[in-house]
Every structure is written in structure tokens, then in C-alpha cells.
């Protein structure tokens, strides 16, 4: 019972990462490796700020700004410097490691005994793990609404068109380079925010905490898409959040079944691969409903 609540809370916190990556991975159509650097960057900034006496809320905003700065650099390297996006992301990610060590003055900074977002009085009266459910849920709802509203604006529409069809976007007078920079900045800002929140939840920031997180973000996106099928854009954002919760459930089940944790990475890789192949498998096994086929292929 308790553990399911804990998984929901963790899922909601990590969903922020999925939503952030959705902007670049699904809307702009590339996998942004920068996140493995900006995630610990957000964590490093927020934890260091808190230990220096900054209020947790301001510290989280600083984490957001730090992440955004990282994304901005990747965007500039990609658009102005003509460095392939994968490489630009990896370069910034690598650089972030040194920056994080400088910020923290070491490889690990603890928050134990410090005031964090999660140590507020109201959360102490709640049952265990409801702090992460409330903070994670509140943040993700707020951010998702803001993103949905942003995507409705002219700027947001231009951003979507850039990902859909660069050529057409340019013919409409959209500066696609600026759109890409905007997307990377915004996305990594959110990643920094996720790092800031998760570090406060975990109680420490560590230089190595970014390793492998891109898999978690992709898993949320892909699991959400596979489980919930064809959706509108706003619904897809919600699907990412639910995908993140489902991913935590899967981890919980794997742990509860008593698998050796040595196999955990392999198991999550297999689950992800199966999810990625599911549309193909469904097609091959002719599991697709005729109706859905008609809708999706639009009379082809």
C-alpha cells in the first residue's frame, strides 16, 4: 500500500523530466543529451543555494535558470555553431560535470538537517510519501498547464510547426533557429527544475546523479504513448505523466518480485524495447482494429 503511494509520488516528480524531454524529443524531433548534465546542474545549484541559506523556493528557481542556461548553450552550438545536435548535447553534458563540481565544491553535498521544500510543516502531518505526491502532483499540474497554454499561443504554434516541418515553417516566416533555441532552453530549464526538486526529495546532490536519466524520460514518453494510444497534444502531455507513474510501478513490481537488482537495468531496457516495438508487433499480429487503422492512415 505504502509503496504504491511512494511510486506514485516518485512518478509524479520524475514526470517533469518526461514533460521536459517531450518538448525536444517529440515536438522538435531529436533526443537531447544535454539533460544528463542539466539535471545534476539543477540539483547542484539548488542544494548549494539551500546550504548557503537561500530559501528552498528561490533555490528551485535558480535550478531552473541554471538548466535553461545549459539548454541555451546547446541550442547555440547546434544552430549557430552547426554542431550536430547529439554531439552538441553531449558536449554540454560533459562540460556540466566540471561546472557542477565547481558549484558544489565537491562531488556530493548533503541536505540532511537543512530546510527543504519537503520539510515544510504541512507535509509532516500527512501520512508517509504524501509529501512527494502533493509536491510532485502540484508542480507537474502547474507546469503542464503552463506548457499547454504556451503551445496555444502564436509562439507555441510556431514552435510546433518548426518540429513538424522546418521547410514549411521557414516559408511561413518562422525563424526556426530561434524556435530550436527556445525549445532547448525551455526544456532544459524544466530538467533543471526536476533536478532541483528531486535533489530536495532525495536529500542530497551528487555529481553522478544524471547518469541514465534520459532513459527514464524516454520511458515515460513511450510508455504513455503505447498505453494510452492516439491522443490530442494536451492529452499526450498527460499521457507522459501517467507513463512516468507506470514506469515506477514497473520498477516496483520488478523489485517486489525479488529479481536481482543486478538485472534491473537490463529489465528496464527490455521493457522499453518491447514498448517501442509494440506498434510494430501489433501491426504484424493484425491486432489493430479496422476502425483505428482507418482513422490513423486517413484514407490512404
Amino acid at each position, binding site marked *: *500500500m*505504502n*509503496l*504504491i*503511494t*511512494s*511510486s*506514485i509520488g*516518485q512518478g509524479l516528480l*520524475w514526470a517533469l523530466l518526461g514533460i521536459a524531454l517531450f518538448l525536444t524529443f517529440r515536438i522538435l524531433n531529436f533526443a537531447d543529451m544535454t539533460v544528463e548534465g542539466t539535471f545534476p546542474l539543477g540539483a547542484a545549484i539548488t542544494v548549494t543555494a539551500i546550504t548557503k541559506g537561500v530559501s528552498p523556493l528561490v533555490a528551485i528557481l535558480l535550478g531552473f535558470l541554471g538548466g535553461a542556461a545549459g539548454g541555451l548553450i546547446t541550442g547555440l552550438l547546434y544552430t549557430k555553431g552547426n554542431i550536430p545536435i547529439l554531439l552538441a548535447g553531449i558536449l554540454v553534458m*560533459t562540460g556540466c*560535470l*566540471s561546472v557542477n*563540481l565547481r558549484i558544489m565544491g*565537491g*562531488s*556530493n553535498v*548533503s*541536505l*540532511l*538537517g537543512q530546510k527543504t521544500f519537503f520539510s515544510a510543516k504541512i507535509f509532516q502531518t*500527512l*501520512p*508517509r*510519501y*504524501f509529501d512527494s*505526491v502533493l509536491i510532485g502532483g502540484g508542480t507537474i499540474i502547474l507546469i503542464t498547464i503552463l506548457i499547454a497554454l504556451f503551445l496555444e499561443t502564436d509562439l507555441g504554434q510556431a514552435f510546433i510547426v518548426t518540429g513538424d516541418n522546418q521547410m514549411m515553417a521557414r516559408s511561413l516566416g518562422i525563424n526556426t533557429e530561434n524556435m530550436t533555441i527556445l525549445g532547448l532552453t525551455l526544456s532544459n530549464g524544466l530538467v533543471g527544475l526536476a533536478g532541483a526538486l*528531486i535533489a530536495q*526529495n*532525495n*536529500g*542530497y546532490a*551528487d*555529481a*553522478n*546523479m544524471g*547518469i*541514465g*536519466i534520459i532513459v*527514464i524520460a524516454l520511458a515515460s514518453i513511450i510508455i504513455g504513448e503505447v*498505453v*494510452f*494510444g492516439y*491522443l490530442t497534444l494536451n*492529452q499526450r502531455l*498527460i*499521457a507522459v505523466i*501517467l507513463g512516468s*507513474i507506470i514506469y*515506477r510501478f514497473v*520498477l*516496483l513490481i520488478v*523489485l*517486489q518480485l525479488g529479481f*536481482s*537488482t*543486478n538485472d*534491473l*537495468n537490463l529489465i528496464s531496457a527490455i521493457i522499453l524495447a518491447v514498448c517501442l516495438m509494440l506498434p510494430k508487433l501489433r501491426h504484424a499480429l493484425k491486432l489493430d482494429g479496422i476502425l483505428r487503422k482507418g482513422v490513423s492512415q486517413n484514407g490512404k
Partner: protein
Amino acid sequence: MKRMLAFISAILLFLGVDLAIAPRTASQTASKSEVVRVGILQMMTHPALDQIHHGVVAGLKEEGLITGKNLKIDFLNAQGDQSNLKTMSQQLANKDSLLVGIATPAAQALANSAPKTTPIILAGISTPAASGLVKSEAHPGGNITGTSGLNPVSKQFALLHAIMPRAKKIGIIYTSSDHGGQTNAHAFAQVVKRAGLIPKMYTIANTNDLQQVASQMVSQVDAIYAPQDNGVASAMKTLVNVANNANIPVFPCAETMMPDGGLASYVISQKEMGRIAGVMAAKVLRGKNPATYPVATVKSGYYMINEKEMRKLHIKIPAAIVRAARQNGKVIE
């Protein structure tokens, strides 16, 4: 869309139910059965950490807690992936009456997930107080105590100095993102400085940098010290190759690094450190209060020497040290 709404309602319903009944279920977790449940959370698979883990189990056994009889151990290994630490530590905190953390991030995750009433035993954490885990090593003050794995840097320096009295510049190499390595490296540098010699620090971001950084280092130093650092430990062979080509000896700090080509060392057995943590865990389970149970710093160790390296580098090790290693330590031939 229907599926999505159904899923959301299910989650909300579950949370509502849990919120309503949780306060009552939380209090009944303490079990009264004969079998004690101990949760061990390890940061990653690594020879030194694995030995600490074995030591903990041995220590518990020594105190009469035997798996399968009156002890159930839940062991989780995060495989270096810190995103899993939180979920894992919550899972352990939920069912175990005592928790053991191996490596700093694992211990921090446990400290943050477990209720303040659950005792946590640290197994070989380099700096428990600086990591925020305990108030001070002498008076932990909370639900956490255990063993500290600080390396006996003074003894290790004394050994280096005895073998190479004319060495002036001592190269120290560590991974910049490794907390333990960094702490150990700086502690050693202090000792070197106090002795009037020159410590020269070199850092690598990961093991791929080692070859290049080491090549640079060997041209500038007389001897090399390899601290308790996961990155350097796993690329020890590379370091030794580069150093030996320049006729420079490597003095590692850990037992596991000696067979890969370390010349000599004074080491604390990782297993011994784990064993003491295990014994402490058993005593806490029997009612000793972690708040007033000081962190044990394991200081006594033994000499290890590598005769193959001695011959290769034509270095003579003082007879007293050789004798000590033969009697009460280890000699690699």
C-alpha cells in the same frame, strides 16, 4: 482517452483510500516475529563495496544473527544508477527494522527515506559528519551510526616515505566526481605537505582520461599515491603500466588495488570494516541507542607488499616492513 481517465481515477481513488487508512497501517509495521529483517542498500557493484557487504553479513553472523534462521536480509544494489536509490531505500525502509548503507549516496538516500525511528548503520562511509549523516562521529545524535572508512593516510605516507626517502614530489590522482576519492586524496595531500614534501594533484573525469593524465603525471613526480577512488581503482592496471614505464612506483590505498601492480600499502580490510558495521548493527538491534553509539573509525590494518613490482622497479623495501608484511599482512609474489 477513456483508458486515461480510468487510470487517473484509479490512482486518485487509491490515494484517497491510502490517505484515509494510512495512519493506522503505518504503526503496525513493527513486527514481533523471531526473524529480524535487515535491509542493505549498496551503491554499485565494486570489489571494495562487495567486500564490505560480505563483512556486514559476517558481522551479523558473529553476533548470532544467521540468515535463514533468525535473520532475513533484503539486499538491493543500485548499480550506480542514483535515480533508483530513492525507490529502493523506501522499499527497504518499509519492511526492515534496521538498514545498512554502503557508499555515501546510498546511506543518504536511506537516511532521507527511513522514519527517524529506524536505525541506520553506515558501512565504510568516508566522512559521515561532513556528508550530513551524523552530527559528529563521537556523538551521532540521531538514528544513524556505523563505521567510517577513512584511509589511514598518515601510515600510508610513512610507508611511502620509508621506501622512497628521496622522493620529493608525490603525485596524487583521483576522479573529480568521486566523493571518497576526493576526500582521501586531499587528506593525503595534507600529510605530504606537513612532511615538507610537494603533493601534486591530478584529476580525471572518468577512467578514459587516466592514460593521458597519468602520462603527464609520471614526468613530473617521483612517486604516485592512488586513493580510495572507484575510477582509479578500476583502471589501476592502466595507471601501473604508465607509471612502471617511467620507473615510478604506485602506492595504492586499498587491498583490491595491490594485485594490479601496487608496490606497497598499509590497508584496512574492507571486509573487516563491514564486519564491524555488522556487529554494530546486531548490537543496535538488541537495543543499543545509535544516538550515543560513536561511529567506529577502523584504524588498525596491515602491510601489503608486492615483490613482483619490487623486482621490476629495482626498489628495496626496508626489512622491517617486509617482516611485518610476512608476519601479519600479505605478500604478493
